[in-house]
């Protein structure tokens, strides 16, 4: 691999200008994925790098009544260092499981979202949170729901020559949250997947339920989730059984391997069986 240029823009605008000049440039955030997975850097062409990891505009965290807005270059360690990381619910749990503390001092939130060939482990959490992302490219700035980054066949579809600048995380208070590796192969195995589930419980009723799996493919079935909304807890065996087997069937339909799909069924069923055990 030959690096022919490392741009160090001082502003987001300059970074976008660099992208315009070299649409195939690699945006370098924390570099933890880029440095640990050689396949991320093309070996057969000249490579241009745009260093966005130290852009002050991407390093901010702002809080409003309704959401937290996080710059794409905020490190996972900084996210976890927020005074109340629990407010970030599943994201805090997912971020805490990425690498080690010293890796998280480098790894950024943007880097977990913008990986081109798989959904990294925070993606399942961000999907559950219905996060929104701000994307910039030479044509302008747009906010999208995170699922805009999910393409046909539920595969990753981060737009080429675009930069993720901010992530908006709605404030939703969850009563039960769990994020776990789904099955055996740990990161960085290509089949490594992450399971995230969260639930809001109001007066003994399941007010909101979200379940997602990220890996090679994203699994999330909003309409299925809605079928349990408003049900009284504890759910019946039948309710749990049919929801979890439908979830596994959705995964199978998306060509998630059968062993991982059946694990998903077991995870969902265990979560729905005793959501109170996953209180934050």
């Amino acid at each position: 691999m030959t690096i022919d240029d490392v741009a160090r823009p001082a502003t987001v605008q300059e970074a976008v200008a660099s992208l315009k000049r070299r649409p195939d440039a690699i945006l370098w955030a924390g570099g933890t994925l880029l440095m640990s997975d050689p396949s991320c850097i093309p070996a057969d062409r000249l490579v241009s790098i745009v260093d966005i990891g130290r852009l002050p505009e991407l390093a901010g965290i702002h809080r409003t009544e309704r959401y937290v807005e996080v710059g794409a270059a905020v490190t996972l360690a900084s996210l976890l260092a927020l005074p109340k990381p629990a407010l970030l619910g599943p994201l805090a749990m997912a971020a805490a499981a990425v690498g080690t503390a010293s890796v998280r001092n480098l790894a950024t939130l943007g880097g977990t979202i913008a990986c081109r060939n798989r959904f990294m482990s925070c993606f399942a959490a961000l999907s559950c949170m219905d996060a929104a992302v701000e994307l910039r490219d030479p044509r302008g700035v747009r906010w999208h729901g995170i699922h805009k980054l999910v393409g046909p066949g539920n595969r990753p579809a981060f737009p080429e020559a675009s930069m993720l600048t901010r992530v908006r995380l709605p404030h939703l208070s969850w009563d039960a949250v769990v994020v776990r590796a789904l099955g055996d192969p740990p990161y960085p195995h290509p089949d490594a997947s992450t399971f995230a589930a969260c639930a809001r419980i109001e007066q003994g009723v399941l007010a909101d339920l979200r379940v997602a799996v990220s890996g090679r493919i994203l699994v999330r079935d909003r309409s299925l989730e809605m079928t349990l909304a408003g049900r009284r807890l504890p759910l019946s065996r039948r309710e749990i059984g049919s929801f979890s087997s439908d979830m596994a069937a959705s995964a199978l339909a998306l060509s998630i391997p059968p062993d991982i799909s059946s694990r998903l069924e077991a995870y969902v069923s265990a979560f729905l069986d005793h959501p109170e055990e996953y209180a934050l």
Partner: protein
Amino acid sequence: MKARSRGFGLEDGRLSSFRPPDLVYVATVRAPSGPGAIQSIHSPHLPRDYRFITAEDIPGQAAMEFPGDKVPILAKGRVDYPGQPVGLIAGPDRGRVDEAVRLTKVLVDAAPEDGGLDCFGSGRLKARAQRSTGDVDRALAEAATVVKASYRLGAVDHYYPEPQGAAAYYDYDRLVILSSTQWPSQVRRAIASALAVDQSAVTVLSGFLGPHLDGKLWYPSLLACHAALVAFILGKPAMLQLSRDEDFLYTPKRAPLLASYRAGMDEDGRLCALDASLAVNIGAHGPLAAAIVDTLAASFTGPYSCPAVRADVWAVASDRPPMGAWAGLGLSSATYGLERLADACSRASGADPLAFRLLNVSQKGDTTSGVALKQVPRLKGVSERLLELSDYRRKRSAYELIRKRRPDPSLPPGFGVGLAFAYQSNDLLPAFGNLKALAVEAELDKDGFLTIRAPILPTDSSALGVWRNEAAAIIGIDPKAVRVERDAGADSPDAGPAAFSNAMNTVARLVGDACSDIRDRRFREALPLVARKVNRKSGRKSSPLDGASWAGAVVELTLDPLDGRPRVKGVWLSLDAGRVLSPVKARLSLERDAARALSTCLGERFDPDHAGPASIRAYRISRLDDTPPIVVDFLDTGDARPGGLGELAFSCVPAAFANALSQASDSADSEETA
């Protein structure tokens, strides 16, 4: 002899600090597949200062000789396993050397062979050991209950602090080798034979050894031969250091074990027959095959009494990289199988696991281990303390209630507590090697300085400090006046495989004896005073159980309701290891060993049959924050002799863990009761 600073940055014994001027880096060209015939080797054009070395360049013997096996220094004509070294590339720039290795193409006409343990022909036998007493078939036929069970242990990586390697350089006409080895004299012998030089022309300096878990017995000799060959041919200092991935894939792992048993019990739950067949996969080369099968055969009955016992133990060759020892050769594997079986037997006889063990523990005069016992195995004290520490009884019955009364038997009960016992004995030293050669010399000079020369030294500086303090206390001098050296001269006895971890106690005892001798003569004879103590013990005249150290472990765990993974809540260890020289150090080393032993049960999975670059990424060694609370307690029994400690946790913690897991998952793997 410890590595001494020669301005080469060796102060800390780290191979990676070796930076003499003119250094050449050495990297290994490996067979991409195997076993099979080497069709061709194409190396890229190398610049002038670089050299490609093959087996043809070895001036002396092309293979290292071990009892029962030969290990080629570089493969010639044929490779026995994928990854076997076929050549070396050496040169001044590490990056270019690595690049040249990448560009070298080795073509092998590979024909993989079967490597399993379930079924193998005599052609794959590397070593075999048998032991029997009494009529096992008859005893099994007459037994009230017969339990059939089999257990497996997988390959485990030693994960040394520094990947293995070696350096070689000339100090005038002497070839000096820096090697992190448990067996320096073996390194010297191997190099002398490969280079066709006299052993006296080779000096071996011990690099930093760290927790070696008996993985650095013979493989360092192979790497040292590689470095020495380059230094010899190029006349420059040479260093070969494996990458972490190479170390993971190609240095010997714990040999996988398949242990199958038939155990017969009478109506009272006493063992009346034990039939064991134990097979280890030793890989393509097995320099330790004989030692491992001997240890397995010698230790398969553990501390238990049984009138009719039979063991058939095989080291089975396969087409995988060489496998080898893990903390005590076969002892930890034998203990694992036996302590799992003890739980299976207790289940079958309806007894509590501890009660079953105590009922069956050998008594004075018992001959199950092959020699009449002089002492009762010290399990009672260990178990009493263990129960106290861990609250085992209460937990066990509470979890049994949960197991039996759970509303949905298709779901695992989720709670388990297990126990296991283990011993470590100097008398289990492997069959090959010259035990009698273990000798220690102490010299008190005219200035009051004491020099101790021993064939092997403790692996960490703190243990060395304990020796110094002990010696100083015996003679009545300042510990600062005590120097300890490894006796590495050409005429020094080969400590042989006595360099296994449990030999250290024999040497420690000899150090004590030599110092006592000097103390007794100190004011009666003129200085300097020299005392030489030679180990008179040979072979296994006494039972390995007499004078052994004892340990019991309890592991408590729950199964995570979501992912079903075991979460260990605590580990308790109680030990009777005679006099503990340094209680703090001993506790810390046991805590460390228990944490590592537990880690091997949790995420350390390696399948040699499907090994590849991704294997190391999937191999999860527990980190500091994964480790549960570990309680270690030493019994003070007033015994004056210090006993070995280094293998105990590796022997009993995995079995206690697996026994707890059986209770928590209500499954006992492959057990049958007839």
